[in-house]
């Protein structure tokens, strides 16, 4: 009976995650449809930004490869430290975080028409949601199951990535304002 309960629990979890992904896809589709109907153009990056974004993407990909390689060695040496899939997902967050920070650092994150204030607010919202959700998950079941990092840690980890991005964007925006018009 316990085993069946466990299977149902995992199914609920999987369905919950699928519902989250589905909601995300629908939200993004609605966002772009509304933008198109309002006659807004897609975000435009200039040629230097495109080059730098490409480089950042390339490096982020290798960061992910390195993470997966290091993780597999760690797992072989000291054993599993996270539940199935969680460690890989955390690696994806690390790579995405690297990409965002790298782009922000080279002025290639925001398109020509985009304002940093909008993204600062957006990142702050994701951080707050991540913090609340993380706190609720921690109070509910904690971040460890049988000594392994569980799926409860995913949303707060996502929040941490956006917190780092928020700090990077804020620091960079202030620095850009300080550097004057013509260096």
């Amino acid at each position, binding site marked *: 009976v316990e085993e069946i309960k466990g299977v149902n629990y995992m199914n609920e979890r999987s369905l919950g995650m699928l519902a989250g992904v589905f909601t995300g896809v629908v939200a993004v589709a609605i966002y772009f449809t509304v933008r198109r109907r309002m006659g807004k153009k897609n975000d435009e990056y*200039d040629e*230097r930004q495109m080059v730098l974004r490409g480089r950042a993407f390339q490096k982020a990909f290798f960061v992910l490869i390195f993470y997966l390689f290091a993780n597999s060695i760690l797992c072989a040496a000291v054993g599993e430290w996270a539940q199935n899939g969680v460690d890989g997902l955390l690696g994806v967050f690390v790579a995405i975080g690297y990409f965002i920070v790298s782009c922000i650092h080279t*002025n290639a994150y925001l398109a*020509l028409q985009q304002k940093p204030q909008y993204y600062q607010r957006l990142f702050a919202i994701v951080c707050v949601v991540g913090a609340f959700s993380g706190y609720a998950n921690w109070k509910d079941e904690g971040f460890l199951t049988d000594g392994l990092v569980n799926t409860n840690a995913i949303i707060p980890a996502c929040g941490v990535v956006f917190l780092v991005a928020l700090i990077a964007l804020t620091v960079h925006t202030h620095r850009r304002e300080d550097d004057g018009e013509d*260096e």
Partner: protein
Amino acid sequence: MKNLKLKAARAEKDWSQQQLADAVHVSRQTVNAIEKGDYNPTIRLCLSISHALGKTLDDLFWEEEINEGEQQS
């Protein structure tokens, strides 16, 4: 290598980096990077900048080849 010709041409028109950037649809940081020599623009952007500033490509981007023999003498 810094592109002082571009900076001078921009100053001649009394344009800021932002004004030039808006005229050629790039970010101010891109104009800054070109002037500082940190970024080599494509020929398309070079043409846009030249048109915007009313100069030729040669005026803004041509660099005389430095002959090593002449340099040593």
